[in-house]
């Protein structure tokens, strides 16, 4: 049901764009106004969300991430899984962001041989995620050819590597295929595994269908429903130099592609896709586990008037000594007495 709803939502978006452009002729709406709104919503929403996160206090250094915490010198600690230094945190964050370490550690619980519970590693989700995210990154960077003039060298380089197989004209990019395959896997996974389907919501399916729609329209535009690419770049350059002008004769499918991308951008800050930023801001990952070495004070604690034992003893030392109670620090001998002796 959730999946169907999401699919219908994406198809409705497609229909909206087709109707708007083909029937309504609203080119400047779909080609100029919507993209501007989308990017403003994206950046504004994103900053708003990040500031919101930044304002929430982090109550604890969470000491139970994984691996052995740094404690006594003769106990081996996990330097990177449970880092206590800034450098360790840097490594852990890099592993997390670049290699999805937490996902890599994913295990699967199974009941084997009738009654035995077993835990085994499962790497499929990790592989799907890696394939999806990296191909998305490559596709994102590849698209800079429509957004920059002159085109930076790394975009050309990436295109050459991506189109290395030289299949077809224009060349079919490997990442197009990987992206599509990975998305398909991530979707099928949600649909096919009962437990995962049970916990999947509309906001899990919607981005998947949205991305599938973007990929489909993109591949169609590149390989099957070709249109005036130069005109498209003129449009984007106009947009980003704030002199928007609609170029005539661009196929409506391009506007569908653009509209879906705009939807993604506008939807982004208010969705689970914010893990793009969240991964940098998750306290279980980005804080050093040094609570044994440094005292972290809970930021919202009411100020407590502390009166330590040392202070107490300072206040009452003489009386304590007089009463014959043991004290940590002996009272200083009085200078006068010392002279007499």
């Amino acid at each position: 049901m959730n999946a169907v709803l999401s699919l219908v939502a994406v198809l409705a978006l497609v229909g909206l764009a087709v109707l708007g452009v083909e029937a309504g002729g609203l080119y400047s709406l779909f080609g100029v106004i919507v993209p501007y709104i989308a990017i403003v919503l994206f950046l504004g929403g994103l900053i708003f969300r990040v500031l919101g996160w930044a304002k929430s206090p982090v109550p604890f250094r969470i000491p139970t991430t994984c691996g052995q915490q740094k404690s006594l010198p003769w106990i081996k600690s996990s330097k990177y899984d449970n880092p206590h230094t800034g450098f360790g945190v840097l490594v852990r964050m890099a592993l997390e962001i670049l290699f999805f370490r937490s996902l890599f550690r994913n295990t699967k619980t199974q009941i084997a041989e009738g009654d035995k519970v077993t835990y085994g590693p499962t790497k499929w989700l990790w592989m799907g995620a890696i394939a999806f995210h990296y191909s998305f990154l490559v596709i994102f960077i590849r698209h800079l050819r429509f957004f920059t003039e002159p085109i930076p060298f790394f975009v050309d380089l990436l295109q050459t590597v991506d189109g290395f197989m030289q299949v077809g004209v224009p060349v079919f990019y490997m990442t197009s295929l990987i992206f599509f395959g990975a998305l398909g896997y991530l979707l099928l996974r949600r649909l096919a595994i009962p437990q995962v389907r049970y916990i999947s919501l509309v906001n899990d399916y919607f981005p998947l269908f949205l991305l599938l729609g973007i990929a489909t329209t993109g591949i169609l535009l590149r390989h099957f429903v070709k249109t005036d690419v130069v005109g498209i770049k003129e449009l984007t350059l106009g947009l980003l130099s704030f002199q928007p002008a609609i170029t005539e004769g661009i196929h409506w499918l391009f506007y569908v592609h653009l509209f879906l991308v705009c939807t993604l951008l506008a939807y982004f800050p208010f969705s689970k896709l914010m893990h793009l930023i969240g991964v940098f801001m998750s306290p279980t990952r980005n804080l050093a586990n040094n609570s044994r070495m440094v005292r972290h004070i809970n930021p919202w604690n009411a100020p407590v008037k502390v009166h330590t034992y040392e202070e107490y003893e300072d206040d009452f030392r003489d009386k304590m000594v007089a009463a014959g109670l043991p004290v940590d620090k002996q009272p200083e001998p009085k200078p006068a007495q010392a002279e007499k002796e």
Partner: protein
Amino acid sequence: MHDAGKVIIGLAIFVLLITFPIWFTLASGKAGHRPELELPKNETQCVESKEYMKAWHMDLLNDWRDAAVRDGKRMYVAEDGKKYVMSLSLTCLKCHTNKAKFCDECHNYVGVVPYCWDCHVDPKGD
């Protein structure tokens, strides 16, 4: 705000990256750049319509290749009935005499690097 310094620096880097196309293109001063094609002087009609050629010329060339190499048919009958020899170097480049001012203009503009010219000869020299 907690760790305000780090958050603001992070956000600034993110915004800078996202707006890369804007400042990069504006800094290069070529935002208004458009490909300027040198059109053939004595010919006004390409083998097919301008719109079709704009979008589909690469497929046309690909099909030409298949027809000429695999089927041994080297004459293309256009939509309007006119006939052309299917040859990139001899037919296309006969009118579009300057590859740099025709092919490369758009290809460079949208970052397309066709490998046609690895083998096919530009009669006017590379």
